[in-house]
């Protein structure tokens, strides 16, 4: 197993941990954190392929990772504010108890 494969394995493990968290946790904030972990796994893949791929001087992997981190930051800000608004409405962040679309 070469080093690219070990980075890819670590990244898929990170993705699976995030997926497990997003599927099993009931707190909406922790579900959002699980999604952030999955995004991080994708970023790690970008950087690993940039490092071990062909033509690393084009810096495309780094650019992908930078833009993906920015989008993740925007997503976290909007997601957490939606959770705050929903909490103000339902008085809970438990996803099992937030079960009506109509207030």
């Amino acid at each position: 197993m070469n080093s690219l494969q070990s980075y890819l394995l670590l990244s898929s493990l990170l993705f699976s941990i995030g997926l497990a968290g997003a599927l099993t946790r009931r707190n909406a904030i922790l579900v959002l954190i699980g999604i952030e972990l999955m995004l991080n796994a994708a970023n790690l893949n970008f950087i690993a392929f940039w490092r071990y791929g062909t033509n690393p001087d084009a810096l495309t992997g780094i650019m992908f990772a930078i833009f993906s981190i920015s989008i993740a930051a925007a997503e976290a800000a909007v997601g957490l504010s939606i959770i705050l608004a929903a909490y103000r409405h339902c008085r809970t962040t438990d996803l099992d108890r937030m079960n009506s679309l109509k207030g």
Partner: protein
Amino acid sequence: MTASFILLAVLTVAGTAAAMSMRNAVHCVLALTLGLTSVAMLYLQLGAQFVGFTQILVYVGAVAILAVFAVMMTHNDKPMDLPDSHSAWIAGCIVAAAVFAVLARAIVSSAPTVQAQPQPAATVQQVGDALMHRFVLPLEIMGLLLTAALIGAVVIAMDRREEMK
């Protein structure tokens, strides 16, 4: 696989697994910062300095703090994260393990021909040059997106009941 990679991989997996399994939400976010910092160290080890420090600034500095604030603002005195229903927990773990098995099998069975290359240089100057020349349009669009997300987040989180009174 070097010793530093194994150490960082163990730290990453331990931090993120703790973040997804602890009871107290604040502890989860603290464990998350450990995992994300180790991912940043992995970026540094791969030679992507700018991305590594961006990861620390954005995730540990901003997203984790934001998550801690959200946890504290939505804190209830009732124990909120009661033991999850057992079957749902097991089903989620099985799905995640199946996804990991498929991905790991694909990775191990494929043998990418990777020659030992010299560490590619990605100094901050080169990254800045690329951002200002080749990727200037995506950079501007990203600035627009971040502005829109900032305004949207403030508008969504604003308490409107005060205005209505």
